[in-house]
């Protein structure tokens, strides 16, 4: 098959798989939240039904909005998440094939949903959305630096473990860590913890859901979105929920070993552990103010990530 054919097949398979996985994880999240609150919670198909329903609703564009930017933003957010899904799953199942720098492309594309929510919110002309967009921007500025530092730790560990030069290919990263993952070291543990908190912020989950705080700014950035365009944003978020644990496993925890049944089992175990952590953090924390969030990321997590990087460069 030609390279283009492979690309299309990967995009379709990984995209649809991640959609299903992400929506299922949304249900797990809601069900666990309900159980924590001593409720029964929604049936397993609830997120799928929600998306289907939104597809059949009216798509309203407010009279104060810039129509083009308002409607393009959710499309770009969904499309970039689909490409991230294709690259990450490709690195899982065919680590030998891949292009140099795919990790950098993934990191760029992962910021697109946040950028697009800002763009869409600003285009909607709603004051609540403007407040939400400003908070989203500050949140992005807060968590990107520690996240990148933490991912550099994964690269440094892979370089020292694999005994090779630094690599920006996810496949090489996974193969260098196949016997001894980055997380089996002091710097790796510290970096993974920082990355988990950053992923929580990237997913917009409590305690970092201040961009769409329901009770103060009425779902903030999403306030003017309805019907299919809202569904696209929610789908992009559900897919991110499936992709962030995957990225962390690829960078810190040795990826997916498809050669044996225990490889797939341990991968599933790691994955479920990271997803459960997201839900657990969400259910046991109150929302932080934006100044508290920025202080946490800049003065606690960034130094921690830099410390981890220094440790990793010295071979710990």
């Amino acid at each position, binding site marked *: 098959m030609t390279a283009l054919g492979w690309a299309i097949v990967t995009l379709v398979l990984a995209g649809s798989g991640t959609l299903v996985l992400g929506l299922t994880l949304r249900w797990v999240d809601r069900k666990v939240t309900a159980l924590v609150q001593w409720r029964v919670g*929604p049936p397993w198909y609830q997120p799928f039904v929600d998306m289907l329903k939104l597809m059949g609703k009216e798509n309203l564009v407010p009279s104060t909005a810039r129509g083009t930017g308002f409607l393009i933003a959710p499309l770009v957010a969904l499309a970039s998440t689909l490409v991230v899904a294709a690259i990450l799953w490709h690195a899982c199942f065919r680590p030998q094939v891949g292009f140099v720098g795919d990790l950098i492309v993934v990191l760029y594309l992962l910021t697109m949903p946040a950028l697009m929510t800002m763009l869409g919110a600003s285009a909607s002309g709603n004051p609540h959305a403007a407040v939400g967009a400003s908070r989203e921007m500050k949140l992005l500025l807060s968590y990107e630096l520690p996240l990148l530092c933490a991912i550099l730790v994964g690269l440094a560990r892979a370089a020292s473990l694999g005994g090779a030069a630094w690599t920006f290919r996810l496949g090489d990263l996974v193969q260098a860590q196949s016997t001894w993952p980055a997380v089996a070291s002091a710097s790796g543990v510290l970096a993974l913890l920082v990355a988990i908190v950053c992923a929580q912020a990237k997913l917009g989950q409590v305690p970092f859901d201040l961009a769409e705080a329901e009770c103060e700014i009425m779902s903030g950035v999403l306030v003017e979105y309805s019907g299919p365009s809202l569904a696209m944003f929610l789908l992009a978020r559900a897919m991110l929920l499936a992709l962030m644990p995957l990225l962390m496993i690829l960078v810190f925890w040795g990826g997916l070993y498809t050669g044996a049944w225990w490889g797939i089992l341990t991968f599933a175990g790691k994955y479920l552990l990271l997803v459960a952590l997201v839900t657990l953090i969400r259910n046991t924390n109150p929302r932080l103010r934006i100044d508290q969030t920025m202080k946490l990321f800049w003065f606690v997590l960034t130094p921690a990530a830099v410390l981890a990087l220094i440790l990793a460069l010295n071979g710990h």
Partner: protein
Amino acid sequence: MGVTTWALQKSLWVYHVNAGACNNCDIEVLELLTPRYDIERFGMVLVGSPRHADVLAVTGVCTRQIMPRLQEVYLQTPKPCVVMAIGSCAGGQGIFTEAYHMATPVDETIRAVDPNAIIMYVPGCPPKPEAMIDAAVKAINFLKTL
């Protein structure tokens, strides 16, 4: 019944509009989210914006102040949507019918902008959560006929 209509009756998102209520019905609406009633079993959640809503849960008498705003919120809700007039006040202005600050009742206010609006009435002062769940079931049964 199309696929999206089927999905709609499985996942009704509620936006709560207070049109001059005494807060009694509002407390009873919040009761639906508690472990005892847990309306999320049927896929119903409270949302923060009328743009996301399928059901407008209107409480209160509809005062002259709120009347244009209620109409605006109804127009901002993507269709198809259901209006649930909760409490005796929202149903027919209750004991405040003759008062000086009354606009038209909730149903007439909404029919003034959309004659074909779907309106459910939940009488009571305040109505019990069971009555509201019953109204939700009736709304779902009505949506099945669309």
